[in-house]
């Protein structure tokens, strides 16, 4: 049985969740049936004193069974499931006897919702235990009464951020917030406290089940709550741009639920929950952020041999922003770091950057001062290559200059073992070319980190022509070891992320050149779900860098006797850099002005140099172009073998440059749109805006075969 039912001499029943053949308890059909039976048995008990609900697994209950949620596409079916669970939880809540949740481990999502239906919650003291309602992160909402119980327990204003942000808390924070009532030091103490509470509270009832219930912090009519409701959607829009129905549905659940009794409110919640479960946004998010991400973490793109290994000591060459960031994340993962620069003081400066990062974590209570010192102690700063001795891995993060990189490669290789691997953190230079400077090109690989390293979750692993499978496996393991997500790509101009990302900024510039209003096209980028508008992003990348790459590319093609492909954005880059000397954010002047005291704003003269077209494109078409171009370029990367996995494509786009998660990544975007529809629309866009929109052959083949990117 998935639930053990044990009654003791004091007539206290302990229900222990312990699903067979699974490492964790999940809420789904397998649990519902025994749960239903257990409740019927409780109701039939003659002399029941109370109930303790706990688990035999590491976690209490990790949430809903995502497989079942993902598979459901029929509204009626979802509604029925949600209502069934809620009615069981409600029967427990209105049993008339005390029910205590003894949280021996994490209670997330439906797990926490079940605990909220209990009358009292005691959690084990263990900072690894997580308490929270993270449903929103997969495009869902707490459909087990969570959107109703939490506001009635904590108040509207307190509950909303927990529901909308899906924050997971440790027991201490959960106690402070009022999600749990007690913390126990040991499992025995927890069970004893549960029994004691039962003895002391013979007939508990929830406040909302008692006549005269008053909302903590007031109901929706209370003027400051009414003000909150009036501005909440606008505030939410700043974050979601209307792209996340789950967040919007959470607001509706809490608001509409606040006008009616608890049971009616729960039914309203089920309807919005259902709406989320069958939404394409949830399916996209679950596809990418659950299935594909889990697949990557299990080593989907890693060679099966050799077995997983750990890096013990890493060398980082160059203590600039990137080098310092890499040193920081590696040291935090328990790896010894040798941070080398040309002078000791330069290297120390890099360590200071790491120190500042760590300090922030201490201030935010994510780390203790002792932990900070331990991490810093792992970072050795030096100007001697000899200190690299014993490194399993050396990562160079020096300036993007082939000669310099060749020099540091040789210097490091002279000091490290033959089995050690050497990685270049380049974002632009082909790895195969850089590997020519290596004595052991088989051990040479690209590790493309993103800035700022501590915040960006992705590392793009680039295989050179001669990179060995062993090297790839080691690099992959290292990325997981520093708790980043690895994607694996083959060597090619711009690799995957830079190449596809640049299509977005280029399309933005092309639209500007066509005479789209710059503010409108920036808004289109944000409305599409991208984190930054294309022009602002161009400024951040810097127009001079793009100019430099254009020139370099042109020379490279010329050297091969070919003509470099032209993009309508190129002329914009040349105008901005050569004629107007507006090279980007660092210079304080690009598409935007960057006043010293105040927010950036679009350069007023932009419209003089790129006159506005009389007929402005509808925003929807601008959005479409900005999204399609990224998806099409990704298909080309698949077709050319730059990418080998759909998961890598999707997660690389979401984690690498912020492609909107609600679309599930660049390839899932096409699945969601429908491949045939996408191909047809791309043809139409190509006819009007240029061949860059032409659907690649492989896409059309897939479409006619009725396949998807999976």
């Amino acid at each position, binding site marked *: 049985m998935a639930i053990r039912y044990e009654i003791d001499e004091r007539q206290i029943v302990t229900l222990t969740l312990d699903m067979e053949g699974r490492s964790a308890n999940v809420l789904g059909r397998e649990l519902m049936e025994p749960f239903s039976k257990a409740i019927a048995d409780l109701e039939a008990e003659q002399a029941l004193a109370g109930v303790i609900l706990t688990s035999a697994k590491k976690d209490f209950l990790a949430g809903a069974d995502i497989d079942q949620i993902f598979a459901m596409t029929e509204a009626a079916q979802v509604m029925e499931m949600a209502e069934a669970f809620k009615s069981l939880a409600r029967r427990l809540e209105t049993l008339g006897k005390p029910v205590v949740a003894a949280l021996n481990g994490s209670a997330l999502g439906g797990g926490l919702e079940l605990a909220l239906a209990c009358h009292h919650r005691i959690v084990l003291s263990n900072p690894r235990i997580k308490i929270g309602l993270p449903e929103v992160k997969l495009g869902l909402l707490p459909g087990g009464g969570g959107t109703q119980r939490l506001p009635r327990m904590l108040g509207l204003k307190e509950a909303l951020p927990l529901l909308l942000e899906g924050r997971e808390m440790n027991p201490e924070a959960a106690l402070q917030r009022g999600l749990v009532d007690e913390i126990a030091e040991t499992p025995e103490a927890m069970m004893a406290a549960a029994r004691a509470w039962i003895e002391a509270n013979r007939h508990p009832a929830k406040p909302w089940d008692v006549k005269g219930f008053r909302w903590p912090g007031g109901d929706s009519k209370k003027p400051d709550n009414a003000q909150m409701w009036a501005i909440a*959607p606008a505030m939410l829009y700043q974050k979601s741009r209307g792209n996340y129905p789950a967040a919007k549905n959470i607001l509706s659940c809490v608001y509409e639920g606040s006008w009616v009794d608890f049971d009616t409110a729960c039914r309203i919640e089920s309807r919005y929950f259902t709406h989320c479960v069958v939404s394409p946004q949830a399916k996209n998010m679950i596809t990418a952020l659950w299935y594909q991400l889990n697949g990557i973490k299990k080593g989907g793109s890693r060679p099966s041999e050799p077995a997983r290994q750990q890096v013990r000591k890493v060398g980082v060459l160059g203590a600039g922003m990137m080098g310092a960031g890499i040193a920081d994340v590696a040291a935090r993962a328990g790896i010894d770091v040798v941070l080398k620069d040309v002078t000791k003081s330069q290297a120390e400066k890099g360590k200071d950057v790491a120190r500042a990062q760590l300090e922030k974590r201490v201030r935010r209570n994510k780390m203790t001062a002792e932990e900070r010192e331990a991490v810093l102690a792992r970072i050795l700063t030096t100007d001697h290559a000899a200190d690299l001795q014993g490194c399993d891995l050396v990562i160079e993060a020096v300036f993007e200059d082939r000669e310099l990189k060749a020099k540091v490669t040789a210097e490091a290789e002279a000091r490290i073992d033959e089995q050690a691997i050497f990685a270049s953190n380049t974002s632009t230079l082909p790895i195969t070319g850089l590997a020519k400077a290596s004595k052991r090109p088989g051990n040479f690989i690209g590790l493309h980190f993103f800035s700022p390293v501590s915040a960006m979750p992705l590392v793009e692993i680039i295989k050179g022509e001669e990179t060995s499978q062993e090297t790839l496996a080691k690099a992959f393991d290292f990325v997981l070891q520093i708790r980043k997500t690895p994607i694996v790509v083959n060597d090619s101009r711009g690799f995957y992320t830079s190449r596809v990302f640049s299509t977005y900024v280029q399309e933005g510039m092309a639209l500007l050149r066509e005479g789209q209003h710059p503010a409108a096209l920036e808004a289109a980028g944000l409305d599409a779900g991208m984190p930054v508008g294309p022009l602002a992003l161009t400024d951040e990348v810097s127009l001079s860098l793009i100019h430099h790459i254009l020139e370099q590319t042109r020379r490279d093609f010329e050297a091969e006797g070919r003509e470099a492909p032209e993009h309508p954005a190129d002329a914009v880059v040349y105008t901005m850099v050569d004629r107007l000397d507006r090279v980007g954010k660092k210079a304080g002047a690009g598409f935007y002005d960057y006043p010293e005291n105040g927010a950036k704003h679009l350069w007023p003269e932009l419209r003089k140099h790129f006159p506005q077209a009389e007929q402005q494109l509808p925003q929807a078409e601008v959005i479409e172009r900005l999204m399609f171009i990224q998806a099409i370029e990704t298909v080309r990367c698949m077709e050319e073998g730059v990418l080998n996995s759909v998961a890598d494509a999707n997660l690389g786009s979401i984690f690498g440059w912020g492609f909107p998660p609600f679309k599930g990544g660049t390839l899932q975007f096409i699945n969601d749109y429908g491949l045939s529809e996408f191909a047809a629309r791309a043809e139409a866009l190509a006819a009007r805006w240029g061949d860059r929109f032409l659907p690649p052959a492989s896409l059309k083949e897939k479409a006619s075969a009725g396949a998807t990117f999976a």
Partner: protein
Amino acid sequence: MTEAYIYDAVRTPRGKGKKDGSLHEVKPIDLLTPLFGALRERNNLDTAKVEDVVLGCVTPIGEQGGNIARIAVLYAGWDQAVPGQTLNRFCASGLEAVNLAAAKVGSGQEDLVVAGGVESMSRIKMSSDGGAWFLDPRINGDTAFIPQGVSADLIATLEGFPRAELDAFAARSHRKAAHARDNGHFDNSLIPVRDLNGLPILEVDETIRPETTPESIAKLKPSFQMPGEMGFDLHARRKYPQLERIEHVHHAGNSSGIVDGAALTLIGNGRIGEELGLRPRARIRGYAAVGDEPTIMLTGPAPASRKALGKAGLTAGDIDLWEINEAFAAVVLKAQRELGIDEDRINVNGGAIALGHPLGATGAMLLGTAVDELERRDKQFALVTLCVGAGMGVATVIERI
């Protein structure tokens, strides 16, 4: 269509809509009672002849809820045969009541109707009735709700009205209102509010500040910058993506005042006027209500005016006097620009920036002001129009007899 005539128009003075305002002590129904009395006495009216009372009220809850029109009729001692109804067209409710009365008369189904409005903003707070638009996050979000002040700032930004221009307009409103008050232009319609002993509570409009200059209000802080920056600006930009930012230029000094007040008009056909010995003062030539883009919200006056003018067979150039409600300075300037009107024909006795805007009553007040001023200036046509919440506009064209 039967012609609808305006036989009379009365109003209370407008009292500052806060607890230190003179009318705060007066219940909403007691704002109406003296006006019912005045209509009866001034016209020697057999109240049994009145076939309906239509009153605008924007926050019809609490003391001014529960259909205050019918209760006011009974409490004022009018004949019990007179029914009453309350309507809500937001800020144009008072004018909408007039237009509905004109339609009732015009249709031939009723001969004599009282139309007006009431709002005690000091006692019943604006928006305290909630409502789906303001309160329900789903409706609010889907339709890009923003507060009216942000809408006014949006208009100013799109039209390029600088703060100084709005402030200058506001100062002129006070100057014109003071001049009108001091020269008795309001006297014909103004009915003082008295207590039960007959002691005066308020006899003149309370919020006119003739000393106002553009300079004196230049330092006032923009009222809608904070809510704008908290998210409403972005809601506005969803509809106007070409705007990079909203300029927050409206403030307490160039927006309508929050006040308490009430107004009534007497509307009827020619035959009943003859029967009761009433002198028609003006005829209602055309009227219209329109819907417009709800986020910018306050651009309804121009399309409503054009529609009403069309019904009247007139053009903007024919109108001698315009009453465009001064909800916010930019609203008037925008309507003026769109309709191509000279400023010397607009709000010649000042407007709501100086006098205040008692939401449900304002439209009927402006109508009375227009009739008085047509007579005083010996002019023919006037047009009254108001911007309306959620993107509407209402207008009425009248012709002096």
